[in-house]
């Protein structure tokens, strides 16, 4: 495979801390097109290190698209220009010599900036803590094959469960809504027989915490689905809405969180 060298101009968001004001900083890098986007940032940081300057803080870990740590907005799009691709899986062969690339953090009220490109996404944890589980303790559960689950149902639950919790849906949404994230978990557990007993309480509690955390509402724009690196479907939001309405109408339950 040809390894081509290209020159890029980077406009990188720099912000020292949550209360500081930030600005774009310009850097020029010469890189190899076979690198990943994050390896390109490694090159920039090595360059900054040589100049005894502060490296750019960005979040990353597995670098294979599954941990959900990486979180950049690249040229205005969460995780960059490629469909179904996390930032860490984005390779530089999709860019051209002489390109200018704008790199920003996710921007949402519920995701405050910690430093540079790093944001605090712990609100997602709190949504899960509100009910994104089946209330079973370890031990004393039935045999794994005791309840057969229809293949397609299992598949749909699995597809919803593949959400990596990266927050691209929030960053893509003009309302900074977390409906896609929340609905993925609600759907997974609502589809499976193991999740049914608590489904009403779950959806009420998770939506209540979602609202409290400062995420916006859904106005059916669909940017979340378009930018989701894992292709989580909008159908999950529809399913969650049905669950929510039925929980509100059909029961006397109120959110307990």
């Amino acid at each position, binding site marked *: 495979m040809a390894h081509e060298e290209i020159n890029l101009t980077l406009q990188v968001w720099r912000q020292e801390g949550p209360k500081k004001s930030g600005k774009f900083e310009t850097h020029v890098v010469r890189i190899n097109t076979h690198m990943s986007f994050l*390896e390109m940032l490694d090159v920039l940081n*090595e360059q900054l290190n040589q100049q005894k300057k502060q*490296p750019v803080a960005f979040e990353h*870990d597995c670098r294979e*698209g599954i941990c959900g740590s990486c979180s950049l907005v690249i040229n205005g799009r969460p995780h960059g220009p490629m469909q179904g691709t996390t930032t860490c899986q984005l390779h530089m062969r999709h860019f051209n010599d002489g390109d200018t690339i704008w790199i920003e953090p996710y921007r949402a009220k519920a995701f405050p900036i910690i430093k540079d490109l790093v944001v605090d996404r712990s609100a997602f944890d709190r949504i899960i803590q509100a009910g994104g589980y089946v209330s079973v303790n370890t031990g004393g*559960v039935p045999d794994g094959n005791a309840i057969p689950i229809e293949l397609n149902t299992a*598949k749909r639950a699995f597809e919803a*469960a593949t959400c990596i919790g990266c927050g691209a849906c929030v960053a893509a949404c003009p309302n900074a809504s977390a409906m896609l994230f929340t609905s993925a978990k609600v759907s997974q557990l609502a589809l499976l027989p193991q999740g049914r007993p608590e489904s009403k309480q779950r959806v009420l509690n998770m939506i209540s915490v979602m609202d409290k955390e400062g995420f916006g509402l859904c106005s059916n724009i669909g940017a979340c689905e378009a930018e989701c690196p894992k292709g989580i479907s909008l159908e999950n939001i529809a399913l969650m809405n049905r669950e929510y309405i039925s929980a509100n109408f059909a029961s006397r339950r109120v959110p307990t969180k």
Partner: protein
Amino acid sequence: MKKLDAKIPPGPINEKWTKYRSTMPLVAPHNKIRMEVIVVGTGLAGASAAATLGELGYNVKCFTFHDSPRRAHSIAAQGGINAAKNYRNDGDSVYRLFYDTIKGGDYRAREANVYRLAEVSGNIIDQCVAQGVPFAREYGGLLDTRSFGGTQVQRTFYAAGQTGQQLLLGAYSALSRQISLGTVKMYNRHEMLDLVTIDGKARGIIARNLVSGKLERYGAHAVVLATGGYGNVYYLSTNAMGSNVSAAWQVHRRGAYFANPCFCQIHPTCIPVSGDYQSKLTLMSESLRNDGRVWVPKHIEDVEAIKTGKLKPENLAEDRRDYYLERIYPAFGNLVPRDVASRAAKNICDLGHGVGSSGLAVYLDFSSNMKRYGKSVATSKGKENASDAEIMTWGREVVKNKYGNLFEMYEKITGEDPYVTPMRIYPAIHYTMGGLWVDYNLETSIPGLFATGESNFSDHGANRLGASALMQGLADGYFVLPYTIGTFLAHEISTPKIDTNAPEFAAAENDVTIRINKLLSIKGNRSVESFHRELGVKIMWEYCGMARNEAGLLKARDLVRKLREEYWTNVNVPGTADEFNPELEKALRVADFIELAELMIVDALTRNESCGGHFREEYQEEGGETKRDDENYGYVAAWEFTGVGVDPQLHKEELVYENIKIALRNYK
């Protein structure tokens, strides 16, 4: 000097755990609520342990350096999880899983621990299903399984190519529930930097709040490490960028023995290194070897023709391909254990048959199985006369359903379509069998300090079988540690809440402060990254990787010592201690990797035999198989820290095989 006591319960192997569990000391509910336990790490082993301890009523404090517990590297495990359910009626049993694991580990694991692991394996599947983990299923709605290396039964449960993700999210959900109930207090973005011992017992940790940079003290009656493996000592590995040895290394420095550090697993099917800038390697799941066939061109002229682009590998005639695993190991074929497959790949590349620009790759080819599946679809559709193209399209669909995400991942990285052109793969560091020495209770040589999952050494000997890491992590966390920790805590019920103002806490915090200030004050000329890369790629992979020999190891030890000296005089760590500072985090981790590297080399030098992933070139059978020396090296090497740059002290735990006849490992 302390004697190593593995505390293996007496009695026949199949009764040990049941009897022990029924007679071990317990902590009553009213005492549990007064007892505090620290769990460090939120991967499969940590999240499951923290959740279960919380359910039992303990007061748990749980720590991760990540921004969320769900980011732990267990999330990236792909292929599956083993369990002796025998749902397939193919002759599986607890004994067979036990036997396969001991044999796969090249007879260097502890029988009693492995048997217990096999015993509880079935419970894990039940537990995960109850949590809503969406495993792959058959048309009838029951759970599906597939094959993995080193076995002849199909006992691997899976969720497409992202089983680790689904299991971890299950454990994370159980943990989240306990957090919401207040039994677990979660500390995200907190990195453990030291262990605090009081009167010889583990009583707390010093953690750095990674957002504020402040050092914080946390006390508990017992401490559990579930901090993963140390594969990143090689810089390039399939581990996540943040995976590190620091917690385990710090407790080693405080007196916990480190066992078999030279036992590292090199996974045969990873995407090959493509350039010097590369930051990590990506695994292609072992499950692919179910349907993928490994080959290289039989003739050197074809190797050349492919390299120069004159010939496409998919067009090379069948009789000009060498399916070398099927040829050398007919009984297990492409599903030999990882160490065997990796060495075979290295050997065939060393003979000049390797493909790709570097010559360091072999093909993993799905075409013959796509064809087979396609034909079966044709039959079920009643289309006996389907064209080859139609057959391949249907076959492609079947393969896509099984491994779609892996194929996509490969395509994104390499820019090649693996449905058409066979994947290029090469071995890479993936897992570490060595780790903190633990007894049957999973307690280290420091009382009150436990280690679970990959961070301990106990179950996989010198080579781990595929789909067994997930099994071990969850077995330890859900079904073993929550019981065995009671053997320690039952004697602590009158110990009051640990006072973090104790001088031991102040001393440990001071040690950490000194280390951090030292690193920040050097202001040298090289980045942390450059040291890490040199350590991993230039020294460890070169001399302590897939093949090792005495001369190379001696040289490596010398190089590591020089690198350590340079590190502490020439590293540049920008920024300050009191801020969010990823460079400082990395600097602390790399300092520990450098110290660990020397221990690994010493261990590899001392073990004058080849076994599992540890291949000493001086000790090989004809045909390049490992040559074990059971008489002299049938032991666990547990190393005691005696100072930086000083020879560590070796303690031996002799391995006794009462239930399995120790034999030459044969996969032919």
